[in-house]
């Protein structure tokens, strides 16, 4: 064995474990605001991901244990689960997780090789294939007034409850409401008077966003993630939304409203910061984050879906090799980071 003969006490497992820990405030807020259904979703996604990961590792001839214990599959499962409606049917969860692990991760070469963020690929596939189920969001408990127990939630998810039970708790999300309202020629101010809206974001939803933000700050404080991607992402959302809002406040939502959608906070701190599918250079991280933020607003405003974080991140994933190539930082001694074909 050659030098160095010492290593820092860090590992991929440790990095992934911290990401999971940092998601706990968001999960807690989710349970508090929307009921315990998310726990069933998380558990189902986790089991599916672990089984799929083990099977794929075995099929590809990799040692199962070291790769399974890196926890990366569970991170993917949790991120996807947190993007799904919390009472989504079981087959939706399983399909999305399988697609994320099997196709987006392993068919692209496994850990460290995937071009696209696996959780976002799973999410995008589900959104395109099953738009109805993907937009049946339970409303905040404070509005629906019918708290569901863990057993009730499980029954809904596994199809053991009449559809009416689900219908009773689902309602349009704040972003849906805004989108529909605008399509019906209402002004933003009129739409915002509806009870689904809270202080700056959606009622309840804004607290969920706050919890993701808190978890994200923990990751930053531990230097698991750099400040560049989240800050640039949030700046992209805020500036793009603010620009539109400044020109026509009646037709475009306020920047703070867009910022405090949970998907933006989850996207900025947990999804766009995925190192494997993101940019690696300091400037590249800023471009990547900012681009994803701006695209999120563009898709929300003019796209076919109420939210755009997943598509924005996937689009920026495509641009990563290009961004990295042209943003190589200067090295010690002042030479540009990439000599243009000089040594060939």
């Amino acid at each position, binding site marked *: *064995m*050659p*030098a160095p003969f010492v290593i820092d006490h860090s590992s991929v497992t*440790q990095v992934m474990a911290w990401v999971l820990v940092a998601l706990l405030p968001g999960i807690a807020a989710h349970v508090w605001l929307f009921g315990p259904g998310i726990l069933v979703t998380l558990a189902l996604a986790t089991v599916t991901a672990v089984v799929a990961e083990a099977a794929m590792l075995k099929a590809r001839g990799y040692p199962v244990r070291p790769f399974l214990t*890196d926890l990366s599959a569970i991170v993917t499962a949790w991120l996807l689960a947190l993007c799904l409606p919390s009472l989504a049917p079981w087959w939706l969860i399983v399909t999305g997780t399988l697609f994320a692990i099997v196709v987006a991760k392993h068919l692209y070469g*496994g*850990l*460290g090789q995937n071009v696209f963020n696996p959780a976002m690929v799973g999410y995008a596939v589900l959104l395109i294939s099953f738009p109805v189920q993907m937009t049946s969001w339970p409303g905040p408990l404070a509005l629906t007034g019918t708290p569901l127990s863990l057993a009730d939630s499980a029954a809904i998810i596994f199809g053991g409850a009449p559809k009416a039970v689900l219908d009773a708790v689902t309602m349009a999300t704040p972003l849906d409401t805004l989108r529909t309202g605008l399509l019906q020629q209402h002004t933003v101010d009129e739409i915002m008077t509806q009870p689904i809206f809270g202080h700056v974001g959606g009622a309840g939803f804004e607290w969920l966003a706050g919890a993701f933000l808190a978890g994200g700050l923990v990751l930053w404080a531990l230097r698991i993630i750099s400040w560049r991607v989240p800050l640039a992402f949030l700046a992209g959302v805020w500036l793009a939304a603010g620009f539109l809002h400044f020109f026509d406040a009646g037709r475009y939502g306020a920047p703070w409203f867009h910022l405090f959608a949970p998907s933006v906070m989850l996207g900025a701190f947990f999804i766009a910061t995925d190192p494997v599918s993101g940019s690696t250079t300091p400037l590249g991280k800023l471009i990547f984050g900012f681009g994803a933020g701006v695209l999120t607003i563009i898709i929300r405003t003019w796209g076919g879906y109420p939210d755009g974080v997943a598509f924005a991140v996937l689009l920026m994933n495509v641009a990563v090799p290009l961004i990295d190539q042209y943003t190589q930082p200067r090295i010690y001694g*002042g*030479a540009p980071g990439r000599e243009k074909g000089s040594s060939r």
Partner: protein
Amino acid sequence: MTRVLHRFKGGVHLPDHKAESNGRPIHAAPVPRQLVIPLRQHIGNPARPVVEVGQQVLKGQIIAEADGYISAAVHASSSGTVTAIGPALVPHVSGLPDDCITIETDGRDAWIDHAPIDYQALAPADLRMRLRDMGLAGLGGAVFPSAVKLDPGAHACPTLIVNGGECEPWITCDDLLMRTRADEILQGVRVMRHLLGSTEILVGIEDNKPEAIAAMQAAAAGFDFAVEVIAVPTIYPAGGAKQMIETLTGRQVPSGKLSTDIGIQVFNVGTAYALARAVFHGEPLISRLVTVTGHVLRPQNFEVLIGTPMQRLIDLAGDRDGATGVLMGGPMMGMPMPSSEVPVVKATNCILVKSDALFPPLPAMLPCIRCTRCADVCPAELQPQELFRFAKAGDFGRAQEYHLFDCIECGCCSYVCPSHIPLVDYYRYAKSEIWAREREKRAADLARARHEFRLFRLEREKKEKAEKLAAKAQAKRAELAAEAAAPGATGEADAKKALIAAALARAQAKKAEVAPKNIDQLPPDKQREIEEIEARRAKIRELARQPLETDETKP
């Protein structure tokens, strides 16, 4: 006046493990029975032996002289008899033997005549030659011949940095040297200053060595030139030359250039001390301080004769069971030794004995997740994750585009990698592949040039021969024509006929000449033998044909 320090990018905080060995005084290691002194202890050409097997040598006697400008002499570290000159195991990671001079010591440790050098009386070039013959090379680890570095050349060198960083964990030889021999270090600096014409002398010492800083400051106060002793923050690799320059001056050495290009030269404190011994005592570089630490009973520093087997020092420090190997240098950049019996050389600053408890085996490697922690800690400000990708893919051209050769192999990237990838290994591999390809390309270019020249030469010779022949034929024809013209004009046809006859005769003679001669005039028994052999061969040929026929007859 306090100096504003600058922070170089990257670096890591390491557990320094200095306390293990810096508490004990320096011990002089006894003269071993046998010294094995490699000829290649410095960067550049290996030294050329000037002694013979069986010759008696004295301590400090030159046993191999410098070969060329970038080289340094090698001396007998003690008195005795030369018993071997040739390949022996040397402290190199490859485990390949290299040329060494082996001396059986006589225990007298008798010095050759030596005297101080009047350095101010000598011309700088002569002084440098003397220092080269004193075997001086950088003792910080790179062992570059000091005489070369002491030549300011066309550049002025206003700033001289004396490097007492010693940022590698476990190593404390520079620390002990500064604590106990500060005055002599600065005496060496006096000579360096004389040769380089430096006006600013900076001594950089990591702030985890307060005793060394205090000792150097106290010594500096007694000198007639200004020496600034500066405590620099302890962060690996603050003792790297480029990092020390940036910390102290805020300047970076441009990529692909030398520090002297920006008017700065850097020497290790040990080199300054060795220089002082050479100039003021006439002692060549035959010993150095070596830290022996890690898995030994009494980690400490020894004054060691070059050529002493490492195992003697490990024995002195207290060998322990459970050792898993020996490193030369520290844990970040040190080299694993092929055996603990290899000799101490000029580059040996530390002998680090490993054990599973101190250096547990590294965990299995996982794929790179592009987390860029390596880029965050890279003091060369490279993108190690990209270099890794290119090296792994064998895309060496792109690795070079991304400045593979600016990597100083400090090991920070490997240290922080959460996937436990031995990144530095990949860079070393890529570098050696590129060097090998360049060597091959140079060899191929040379071969092509040679081949082209050969073709050109053959062509030229052919032409010259043809011209010569034509001239000769012309002369002959003229001669014959003249002859023919004399006895009566037999004409052009006769002349031609004569020419042909002459050529035929020449050919006949030549044929007779080239006919094989070894079967002519053989003694009769030899002739018989040959005939027998021929007969046997004919028979064998006959036999070889037979099976075919029998096959045909017996279907």
